[in-house]
């Protein structure tokens, strides 16, 4: 019976249509498709998928409820473990996690776990049906408020995926949690990094509000390390601190010309477009350059996001330029396919050697060097080897460098007792404890550039450790 139903994939808006705006690309299941897809799950006695989920969602449990048509029950089941299902359902690399180990994946047809998670969240969301009141129901708000009054105080630094998860879990355990966010909006990379067309900001807002409804306070415009120090937090009565301050300064190509006008690091470009809504300039006052011919260096999710934003802003031609081959591209397969459908050009096995400007310091060309693949390197991917004398130039008027970033330097810099790796990552035990008693860390501040879900896994692990520490 299982084999009779094909895996349902969620529909995308047509490429032709979607490149004209910043609205969401993937459309999600309707109720019928979701129930049918849920019925494909064979409800393994020893489900591998749960082990593949960094936040340990009871995957067969919520899928069983969807199959039975109890969507409210399904979302409650998910939220026992995951406070951010509408986000995870959209941006988790399920193909490398739960869906990878799904028993049906032996035939390459795993249950569409991610799409079902997204469906459960969206179907019960106040956004899709104003009558659905999964949150914030008054009773939940009150419960949160009650917890707050009595609870031991916990400070969380940063409101990205790691911080929100740690805060949500700690609030559910009965602690009184305050998140300190330096930017003007909560969400961290979910707000400034991932574009609207992949993760609508209304959804981020709603899931942050859900965490708030659990009793978590979110205070924006406070930069821990500057406005207040970690020390100040303890003096103020907080009993434990979780640092989830996220990504930091961009990695550089280290070639001439990186500071010319028109050369962006991806974080800046995406911050302007997503956080500051520069795509609505001048209605929103933050400007962004609109390139006609745009070169994006790198091939991860951030590079795909930057390329697709540049296209939507009005670029004529956007090229992803990558020094290895398609097989080694770190972005999610579906995002690579979507980028390709939208007309992004992939220039593979070439690396930039120089950025060239006009007489006013504006980028006008990049010089590239051809590569071929050699032996695998430390990352297991085949190392690109330059082909001598193969330099060539292409004309561009905008460049986005998307080759990663280091952990945010601020908290470590202002907290000398906090031990870090040479490359800037905060050193933690496998329980997320740092070198300072009572201080825990997780997400990009520990890992460098990683995924939303791994940051959430860290936040969850830290919450458990903090509970043990306080008891």
């Amino acid at each position, binding site marked *: 019976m299982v084999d009779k139903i094909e895996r349902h994939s969620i529909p995308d808006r047509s490429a032709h249509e979607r490149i004209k705006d910043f609205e969401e690309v993937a459309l999600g299941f309707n109720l019928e498709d979701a129930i049918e897809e849920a019925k494909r799950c064979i409800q393994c006695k020893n489900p591998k998928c749960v082990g593949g989920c960094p936040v340990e969602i009871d995957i067969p449990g919520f899928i069983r409820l969807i199959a039975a048509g109890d969507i409210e029950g399904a979302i409650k089941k998910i939220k026992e473990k995951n406070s951010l299902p509408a986000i995870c359902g959209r941006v988790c690399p399920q193909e490398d996690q739960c869906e990878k180990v799904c028993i049906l994946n032996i035939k390459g047809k795993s249950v569409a776990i991610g799409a079902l998670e997204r469906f459960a969240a969206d179907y019960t969301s106040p956004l899709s049906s104003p009558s659905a009141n999964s949150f914030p129901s008054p009773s939940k708000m009150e419960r949160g408020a009650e917890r707050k009054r009595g609870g031991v105080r916990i400070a969380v630094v940063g409101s990205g995926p790691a911080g929100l998860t740690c805060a949500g879990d700690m609030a559910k355990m009965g602690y009184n949690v305050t998140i300190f966010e*330096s930017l003007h909006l909560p969400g961290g990379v979910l707000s400034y990094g991932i574009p609207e067309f992949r993760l609508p900001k209304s959804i981020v807002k709603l899931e942050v509000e859900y965490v708030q409804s659990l009793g978590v306070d979110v205070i924006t415009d406070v930069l821990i390390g500057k406005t207040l120090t970690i020390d100040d937090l303890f003096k103020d009565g907080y009993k434990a601190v979780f640092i989830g301050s996220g990504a930091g300064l961009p990695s550089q190509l280290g070639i001439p010309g990186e500071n010319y006008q028109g050369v962006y690091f991806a*974080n800046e470009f995406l911050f302007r477009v997503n956080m500051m809504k520069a795509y609505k300039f001048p209605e929103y006052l933050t400007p962004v350059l609109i390139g006609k011919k745009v070169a994006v260096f790198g091939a991860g999710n951030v590079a795909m996001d930057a390329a697709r934003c540049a296209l939507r802003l009005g670029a004529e031609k956007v090229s992803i330029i990558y020094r290895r081959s398609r097989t080694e591209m770190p972005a999610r397969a579906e995002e690579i396919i979507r980028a390709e459908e939208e007309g992004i050009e992939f220039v593979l096995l070439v690396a930039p050697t120089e950025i060239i400007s006009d007489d006013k310091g504006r980028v006008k060309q990049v010089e590239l060097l051809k590569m071929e693949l050699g032996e695998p390197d430390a990352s297991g991917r085949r190392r690109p080897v330059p082909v001598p004398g193969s330099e060539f130039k292409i004309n561009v008027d905008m460049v986005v460098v998307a080759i990663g970033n280091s952990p945010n330097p601020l908290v470590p*810099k202002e907290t000398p007792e906090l031990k870090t790796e040479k490359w800037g990552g905060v050193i933690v035990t496998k329980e997320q404890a740092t070198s300072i008693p009572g201080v825990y860390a997780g997400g990009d501040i520990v890992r460098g550039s990683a995924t939303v879900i791994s940051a959430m896994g860290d936040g969850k692990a830290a919450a458990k450790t903090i509970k043990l520490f306080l008891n």
Partner: protein
Amino acid sequence: MNFKILREEKLAENIHLMEVEAPLVAKAAKAGQFVVLRIDERGERIPLTIADKDPGKGTIEIIFQEAGASTKLLANMKTGDSILNLLGPLGNPAHIENVGIVIVIGGGVGIAEIYPAIKAYKSAGNKVITIIGARCRELLISEKKIKEATDELYITTDDGSCGRKGFVSDILKEMVEGGQQINLVYAVGPVPMMEAVSNITKPAKIKTIVSLNTLMLDATGMCGVCRVTVGGEIKFACVDGPEFDAHLVDFAELKTRLATYKEKEKKALEHVCRLSGS
């Protein structure tokens, strides 16, 4: 969060002072640091130096010149209005020690930014000689306040309407050539002014610190827009600065980067003027 404007004052044509309620910032702020603020939902994040603070009262002072859309909108705000977002104090505090004789130089709206530095150098035991300059008498700000804080004060205006006719760098040049003992120069102002100062002190081997007003966005060590080449290396003004050794700064590159949004800024200003009907 909301940050209430408790007092506003027009210091000169297009130059405004605002005292803003920001208790945590006021408590933590040190000389040389700045804030990033956003007026409303559609606003930019703009960096402004903390011109003064009153930790007891829980306020900071910002001084700004109407230059683009955002500063124009800020100038339109009145006492009692609230700024939507304000983050700080940002950047490293000025590195203040007792070196002997310090020349502090401020140009244009940069004059506002040197006051905390003058006070800090003084209280560290230095003799502080201050040179301030503006285009004309009407644009010269903070003169009285600075006069009270510094040991000596020199004033220049481009048109000679106040003090010496000429530039702040002219006075510095005379001091250097006249053999005045100078242990440190600290300069804040337009990039060409800071560059001119640096060009005088470099051959004389006088240590010179400049506080750079680069473009900023998050200003927390993430986006990288504030990068500047210092001694051949990329540095980030928000976490490595804003103060740098003037003799190592690539001023030409800084000027190019600051001009990135020139066209866009005009468009934004037109948009704002159209909306406000002015």
